[in-house]
């Protein structure tokens, strides 16, 4: 049974990779950091990310409402956000960030706004998927410990 659950979890993860939501290498690296001292390391990191990035998103949102747009500032915010997002391996999100930064460089306000909308969608979508994943992982985890013969 647990094997089944494990497999399910693994599939979930795989689909996240395959669909391009998560970067395989980065995410796996995070998982490798998980150990006895930090058994829920990845989840903690992701939670921390979402908390901190919410603030960045808000900053960007506010900055986009200004008129005229301060591209330097937007560029700066977006760099921060991009840096943060690549920490958990958020691949699609990172691409959106890059696109946004490009628009900033060329001073394309419309492009920025459009990309940002896209980015927000990606952001929440990934968040949901990850929440779902971790919830599941938590169920599977203890099960594994309990059942696996030592």
């Amino acid at each position, binding site marked *: 049974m647990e094997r089944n659950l494990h497999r399910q979890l693994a599939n979930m993860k795989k689909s996240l990779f395959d669909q391009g939501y998560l970067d395989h290498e980065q995410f796996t690296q995070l998982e490798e950091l998980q150990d006895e001292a*930090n058994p829920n390391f990845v989840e903690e990191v992701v939670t*921390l990310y979402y908390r901190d990035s919410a603030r960045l998103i808000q900053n960007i949102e506010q900055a986009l409402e200004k008129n005229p747009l301060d591209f*330097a500032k937007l560029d700066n915010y977006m*760099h*921060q956000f991009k*840096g*943060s997002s690549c*920490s*958990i391996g958020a691949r699609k999100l990172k691409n959106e960030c890059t696109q946004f930064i490009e628009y900033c460089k060329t001073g394309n306000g419309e492009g920025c706004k459009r990309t940002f909308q896209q980015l927000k969608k990606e952001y929440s979508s990934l968040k949901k998927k990850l929440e779902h994943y971790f919830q599941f992982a938590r169920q599977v985890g203890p099960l594994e410990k309990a059942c696996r013969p030592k």
Partner: protein
Amino acid sequence: METTGFSSPRPDAFPAGLRVLVVDDDPTWLKILEKMLKKCSYEVTTCNLAREALHLLRERKDGFDIVISDVNMPDMDGFKLLEHVGLEMDLPVIMMSVDGETSRVMKGVQHGACDYLLKPIRMKELRNIWQHVFRKRIHEVRDIESHEGLEEIQMMRNCMEQSDDGYLFCGADLITGKKRKDVDYKQDDRQCSDPSSVKKARVVWTFDLHQKFVKAVNQFGLDKVGPKKILDLMGVPWLTRENVASHLQKYRLYLSRLQKGNELKSSFGGMKPSDFSSKDTAGNVCLHNSSTAPQNNVANGSYVVCGNKIPIKNVDSKICGEDMKIASVQMAESKEELIGVITDPQKSSNSGTSLNHSFGQIGSDVRYEPKIPAQFSWTEVPPVQFKQEPKPHFQSQSWSAEVRPVQFKQELKPHFQSENSFSHLPLCRNHIQVDCTEPILSHHPIPSTNEKDKRADIRPNCSKSRSKGIGIVNPVESKAELFSVQSKSHLPVCQEYEPIPCSIWNTKNHSLEQILLNDIDSSQRSLILGTGSGFRLWDEELQGYSPQGDFHPQNAGFENIESFAYSNQELIADIPPLLYDSWNFDFGNPSEATEYPVMDQGLFIA
């Protein structure tokens, strides 16, 4: 901490136990890096503010082996931090960023980063960071060996061996291509006669000490002098040749960095044109590029002067706006870096590019490629004709000679020592009065040696200048002052910053450094150094320039400042020791650190 430099808490084989300080404002990355480094068996300390990091470093001298820092941080620019650490603590610093653009990386290297990692960072990259620590050690040892007596080497070896069991040992084994004398670590006796005697004890380059150093250097000329001579001249008994050598190296790097300015992109050696030979006597602002020898970027250093953001609040210095302009112009020319500084087009209210530099006299031909729209709208600045010879001598004496005329009268005594971080900046707290009569020193940093385009007519605009003072210098000073005033707490410890140059400019106001530092902070990299901002800060009268840094040369003021500082150094041989107490500029004032208000209207001279 053990006295030996290699002190490592863990007796395990190196590099385990490496003491790493991680600085990043992103909490997610901080957490990840901490975990990764722990996995490498390193001892990790994390910090999310640059200021806090510097504080920690200062408090625990020899408490860390290496620093890893992000480039974009809210309270202080990563590059600035990098400079500070390099100068004060002489620790290897690794930069990180999600932005891997060549220009950024180059900037990092210019500022002295021993490596530049791109995010997302992999474990394997972190595993190897110990090599930077090791390399530094090796070089130090090598220096010592080559210059000190055998006994010292012995001592060192002993110490090293003792302190890190295998630390050097491994290093020795692993040395690949490192030119090290053959210190046979393995074979030494185990007694370390005096662990702290040999190099590991870090020399704190106090302002006074640095002043002596600078004086000695100026006697010969930065390019010509060697550590032995400097040491002899300095007459400091406890100082070793090796200490001087490494300090000299840093100083040169600093100056060259300043010269090169920020942009290397255009041409690595872009700055070459700065050959300013300040022929002119008078205040020719030596546009020399400090790059006389190695670095040709003239411009870079010179502009440092007025950092845009230098919040020279208390600066009384009246910096001649003109100078600033000129500097900026030069900057533009020379190297992108400087460009930013000089002409801060946006702000400079001055009309046209008149770089009224007192340079006029300088004879140096500043050739700078007019990259910057010479618009220094320094209102007051009369066009100064800059003629620089393409001799990037920044460090050359031209400064000193030229600078002379500029007198900064600093009302304020730059008290670096104590003040906050700025310690190194002997910012004149308050008034940096620079006599504009002389060619603005500031010019010189900019030696963008391109005569052709921008010829900044630098005319010693002293008329207005009185208050103006040396634009360049002042800003720095003012900055320094600002900082100094504000920050009180800083540890003066900062070892002498190599780039004392700032102080030089300011003669008294070490503000240059400050400015530099400040500049760096300012988001606009507008060449704080020279560009308008610097000027702006100085002199309200100068209003005209708002060099906000329009241009910020990509390298941001910081670089310029540095070069400036350096160049200044030469100029201001007798700069009050304030300068360097610690390069730390912005430590004292959080407010300052974060944002240096660029004064649009001239400097705020208290």
